């Protein structure tokens, strides 16, 4: 053993010595006269649809605001992190975008594990990353280089819990996907709902990629609570869940369905169909929002991708990621230094298609309106129609400062 350790040490010394001789120090990055954005998005596999939403949001933004900012041409390099549970890949892609492609800023991370895996790397590389979706509260505490423009589960679930308690719901059953965002959703719904006088009568966690919900829902129908609160990760999984609630007669049994907005995404409503009837959801964006930014967003989106391609909150999140970045670069007068950019991003306020938003100066997380919506059929099309607005909601899930 001693021999092996000794040999290893010698080999290492030799290798490291040659390494330090052969490798030149990396040149300063910002000096290449352009803004390079590295995108890390799920573009293949089960979540490829989500990736497309983000890409489309970015295209819409560049169509409106152009491909130069503060005199710098903008270059985008896209990599595929293949969905959740590939944190090591997301981390390597981030490393490569920074080292190889000289990315000044990373935009991406649709899933919590992927963002978490990249956190320590960003700390070492000292590059800002704008989180385009990943919605677990704790992520932004893992690296001071994270800025989030999406939402958090705590933000949504606490809002919905509060609303439920105030709107005649006494008992609720929770059903969430068994991973960090789901646990956040469960915790914060319960907290807000019980604080308002409600009672949780049952709790179940389902596998993240589960497509079969009948057994879980059967149990809910038997318990017969006033409401069922549910969160799952969107895409096909959520469509399967929503269809199952309809087939199992959850609403017919007099149980109100409460979900986070990503379960009933705008582009999935055609597939969810009648199962949307009367469903209460909470989200930070729906296409029915009336404000100038949203009108422009929808108009350009339609021009680029046609009327059948319906944007959801993810497209808006990517749109806003670009928006905050362009504004920050303009504010620092093309200084791409990480600290300068982060300082410009902190406390930034703007009017997004989703309404007024702000990047909290201390938590680097988003403060935004949360909309309570009801599923309604209007002119033959199912839609989420806002019935109530909670203004300027911050993420309640942050660790309180000591």
């Amino acid at each position, binding site marked *: 053993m001693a021999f092996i350790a000794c040999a290893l040490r010698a080999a*290492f010394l030799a290798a490291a010595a040659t390494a330090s001789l052969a490798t030149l120090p990396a040149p300063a990055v910002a000096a290449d006269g352009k803004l390079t954005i590295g995108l890390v998005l799920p573009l293949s596999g089960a979540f490829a649809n989500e990736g497309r939403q983000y890409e489309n949001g970015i295209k819409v933004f560049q169509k409106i605001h152009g491909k130069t900012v503060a005199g710098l041409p903008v270059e985008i390099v896209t990599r595929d992190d293949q969905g959740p549970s590939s944190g090591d890949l997301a981390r390597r892609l981030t490393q490569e975008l920074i080292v190889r492609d000289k990315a000044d800023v990373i935009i991406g991370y649709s899933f919590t*594990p992927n963002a978490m895996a990249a956190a320590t790397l960003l700390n070492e590389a000292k590059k800002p990353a704008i989180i385009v979706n990943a919605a677990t509260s704790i992520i932004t505490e893992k690296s001071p280089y994270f800025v989030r423009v999406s939402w958090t589960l705590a933000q949504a679930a606490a809002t919905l819990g509060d609303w439920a308690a105030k709107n005649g719901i006494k008992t609720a059953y929770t059903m969430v996907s068994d*991973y960090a965002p789901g646990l956040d959703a469960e915790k914060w719904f319960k907290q807000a709902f019980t604080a308002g006088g409600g009672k949780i009568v049952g709790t179940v966690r389902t596998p993240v990629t589960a497509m079969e919900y009948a057994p879980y829902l059967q149990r809910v129908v038997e318990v017969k609570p006033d409401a069922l609160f549910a969160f799952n990760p969107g895409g096909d999984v959520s469509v399967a869940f929503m269809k199952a609630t309809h087939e199992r007669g959850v609403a017919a049994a007099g149980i109100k369905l409460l979900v986070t907005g990503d379960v009933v995404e705008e582009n999935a409503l055609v597939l969810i169909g009648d199962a949307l009837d009367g469903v209460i959801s909470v989200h930070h964006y729906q296409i029915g929002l009336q404000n100038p930014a949203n009108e422009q967003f929808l108009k350009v989106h339609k021009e680029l991708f046609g009327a059948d391609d319906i944007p959801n909150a993810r497209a808006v999140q990517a749109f806003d990621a670009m928006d905050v970045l362009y504004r920050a670069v303009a504010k620092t007068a093309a200084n791409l230094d990480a600290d300068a950019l982060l300082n410009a991003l902190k406390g930034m306020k703007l009017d997004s298609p989703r309404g007024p938003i702000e990047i909290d100066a201390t938590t680097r997380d988003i403060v935004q309106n949360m909309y309570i919506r009801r599923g309604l059929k209007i002119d033959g099309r199912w839609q989420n129609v806002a019935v109530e607005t909670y203004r300027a909601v911050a993420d309640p899930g942050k660790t309180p400062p000591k």
Partner: protein
Amino acid sequence: MTGASAAARSRLFGGRVGIEGATLVLFAGAIASYFLFPNHLALLTQFLVLMMFALSYDLLQGHGGIVSLGHAAFFGLGAYAAAILARTGYNDPLLGLAFAAVLSAVVALVLTPIIVRGNDFTRLLVTLGVASLVYEAANRMRGLTGGADGLPDFEIAPVLGLYKFDFEGRIAFIYAFMVFAMVYVFLWRVVTSPFGLALRGIRENTRRMPAIGSPVRRHLAVAYTLSGGIAGMAGAVLAQTSRFASLDMLGFERSAEIMMVATLGGSGHMAGVSFAALAFGWLKDVLSTASPKYWQLGLGIVLMLSVFVARGGIGGLLDHLRFRRSA
């Protein structure tokens, strides 16, 4: 070594072992790549991990003739072992590596009674079943493994207390390369030993080996244990260099992938399997960079073509080159 004696030696070992030339090219290439591609070190490190994992599996399928659809169980076990140990504060990389190797080897040893029994088809089912159980167990033990979120929160101490893992991935590459070299030399010793010969005997004819007094089950048990331990080391290196462990490291896709790589490499051909791992990893990266959306289509086409173009796998091509030269 002269061409003639190499050929003689390879005849002795069934034309499957002596590939000095290709091995030298492999190692020279690995060292050269460090200097040629300083911006690709993270990727190169993952190639080395894939090569180690492929070699561990090849000891089973290529030499022992044991097929497995659940080899990622040991890979993932090693990754989690290293990650969990690092989280508890014992974050020396070599300690983690040793712990991962021992743990996966022990688990492999415990499983041998149900693996060495039966034929190829039952083995496929059993290994698949075991891997699914390990996967689900890791999924359930959220407190220990982080469940579906993976384990991102750990630091790894500098190698030998001196060389800190850097952001460019230089130390990670050197570390992975050292482990790879050790594994390669060790496996080389194993497959060229009488034990290795016995394994190939078992692969060629399981029924006749007992007739010459060879303890088939014991040999297979040793091969399975060694293979499990080395797969665990590969997993540990991946977890340590990417500072992340997740369920997909245990998953079926990784098991299937390694079976593809070993087959592509030409079973039982160490250099061939290593080159196949390299080619597979590189192809995946190139295609997914060229087309982040449709790269899996390209990968599928190339894999299918390779079956028709290179029948004996990459190892077969290498042998072909060598024999033509020496003839």
